[in-house]
């Protein structure tokens, strides 16, 4: 039984789907990393993803234009991010709760629009797999790494770019400064509010894209509560990754591999109740959170609104 499970075929399948499934975690998690690094905890990621997923799906359904779907999802996510920024930066609302408000808003509205405008669960033909010439022909390696759709490649490309922006650019320095010591940053002429608006809106745009990657690239369907907790896991991955893009990548991969394993366990009919298999990633998240918080400390000003004196 175990030997059968561990054949090369299955292992390759798990690795390939693991790499694919990390996509939404990467987009949403990296966007959230920027927000949290600047001091804003956006818990509305799940709602933004749902809205992005619906928007992308609906646009593709109507026009057949995949890239237009991506753009609209990014805009919708960005608008929700902007609203979150307004509420948490300008109105200084408690971030833990306002985020839940945006989650409920996105959950309800995407469901409402789905029922009103689509009615039934339908499918679209999403982004096709892109076989990278030559590389995709390498035995084993090609199958695992180089036969995915373009949004998957984009997510992995985002990691080094985000790490570079965060660590090597003035923008990244300012983001980190307003998240660690907003008073000092302010006294050096950094506009704290503007930085936080930028990162939270950016985070919303990436969450919208993460939603689109589900509905028009990975699953190619939309239904009520499509994300089912995925956005919250993405927020947890930011903690797990120690607020660093590469850390988020490690967490996302660990997570999606467990998820892929879980799917294959079900497909192969291995006698573990599927509910326990589905449970695994969530148990893992809690364990990961326990381990992660012992290693690094969060940005000092995380969830603390900044009040400019004088």
């Amino acid at each position, binding site marked *: 039984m175990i030997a059968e499970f561990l054949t090369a075929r299955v292992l390759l399948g798990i690795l390939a789907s693991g790499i694919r499934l990390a996509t939404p975690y990467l987009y949403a998690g990296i966007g959230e990393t920027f927000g949290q690094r600047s001091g804003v905890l956006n818990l509305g990621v799940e709602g933004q993803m749902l809205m992005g997923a619906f928007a992308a799906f609906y646009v593709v359904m109507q026009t057949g234009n995949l890239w237009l779907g991506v753009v609209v999802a990014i805009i919708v996510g960005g608008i929700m991010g902007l609203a979150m920024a307004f509420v948490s930066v300008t109105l200084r609302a408690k971030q833990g709760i306002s985020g*839940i408000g945006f989650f409920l808003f996105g959950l309800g509205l995407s469901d409402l629009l789905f029922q009103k405008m689509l009615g039934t669960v339908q499918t679209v033909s999403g982004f096709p797999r892109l076989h990278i010439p030559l590389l995709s022909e390498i035995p084993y390696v090609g199958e695992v790494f180089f036969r995915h759709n373009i949004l998957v490649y984009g997510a992995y490309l985002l990691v080094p770019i985000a790490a570079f922006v965060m660590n090597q650019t003035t923008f990244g320095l300012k983001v980190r400064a307003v998240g660690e010591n907003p008073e000092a940053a302010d006294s050096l002429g950094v506009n704290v509010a503007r930085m936080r608006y930028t990162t939270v809106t950016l985070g919303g745009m990436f969450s919208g894209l993460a939603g689109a990657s589900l509905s028009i690239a990975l699953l190619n369907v939309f239904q009520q509560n499509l994300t089912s*907790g995925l956005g919250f896991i993405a927020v947890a991955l930011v903690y797990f990754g120690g607020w660093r893009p590469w850390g988020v990548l490690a967490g996302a991969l660990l997570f999606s591999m467990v998820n892929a394993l879980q799917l294959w366990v079900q497909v192969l009919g291995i006698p573990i109740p599927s509910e326990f298999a589905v449970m695994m990633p969530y148990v893992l998240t809690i364990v990961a959170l*326990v381990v992660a918080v012992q290693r690094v400390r969060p940005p000092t000003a995380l969830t603390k609104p900044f009040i400019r004196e004088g």
Partner: protein
Amino acid sequence: MKERLLIIWNSPVIDALLPVLATLAALVVVAFMLLALGANPLVAYAALIDGAFGSVNSLADTLVRATPLLFVGVGICIAFRGGVINIGGEGQFVAGALCATLVGLNLSEGHPLLVVPLAMLAGIFGGAIWGGIPGLLKAHFNVNEILSTVMMNQIAVQGMNFLLIGPLIDPIQLERASRIPQTARLSSSFDLPRLVPTRLHLGTLIAVIMAVLVYILLWRTTLGYRIRAVGLNREASRYAGINVPRHIALSLALSGALAGLAGAIQVYGVNFRMFTDGSATGFTGSAGFHGIVAALFGQLHPLGTIPASFLFGGLLVGANKLQRAVQVPGALIVTLNGLVVVFVVSTELWRQERTRRRVAEKVAEHEEETAALDATPKLEVGI
């Protein structure tokens, strides 16, 4: 006249009305959404109110729907006052319902006066465990409780699905091969008594009593004082000799206990069994989330949560009628609740500034009085 208006405007009464104003603002936004969907908002809201409060039966349904919101909301009040955010109401509700159902299924021959209270205790126990785990993780490992409670929700739902598809499935469903994932109906002798000839059951009364008890706990006992102290300032509480980790864990466990009791009462008062559609919402009706909305609307005060639960229970019941009247899905109410949360927390800043201004005025008045008193002896000396 203008002065009098100013006094009214600055009074704490307006503060208490802020959530109402925030909700009205949310209703206005949703009205525009209804317009965009091609529905008449006035017709929609009329149907909503009629469906919620229009007849004795709908009022009873509203109260039944408000009951779990009140339990969960009162629990949310404890957590918030203790300085922790409990998003795990859904999972705690499920855990409590499961424990209570197990009691009822295994003691089906027992006397109701023994079994039903035992089942309620089991519900409290299940919810307390499910809330207590994130509580302990927060207290001892500083694990973000918002994230851990969300994860605990998913774990509870999968546990429920496993039990209802497998070991706890109704034997009749097994025979029929339809295999609907639900437990057997509990012995009808365990049904919570009806209060009037409607669906209204004893659980609603228990919920109101619980709200009062939690108010007493938080504001009239040492334990409640400590929980609130930890919520206001952990450092100061530690210096005052309060065991901070214990009270953090305790406030989440108590919060979970109330959500667990809500689950138990849902089983014994409404459904008389457990069932699942694979998601949490199928069984809980999202009480774990709507309870947060009710608690926020009630200004995180157990007594304020009573009318708030009634209002939001009404919205959820009225949603059906709204759906029939203007063909807009009931998910609209979830959207509305999300907006209410956002708007209510957004007014918090305003409320704080008003309180600060009032305190400053009081201090100024007090200083004037003291100045006058200081001046008096000088006058005497002068004479």
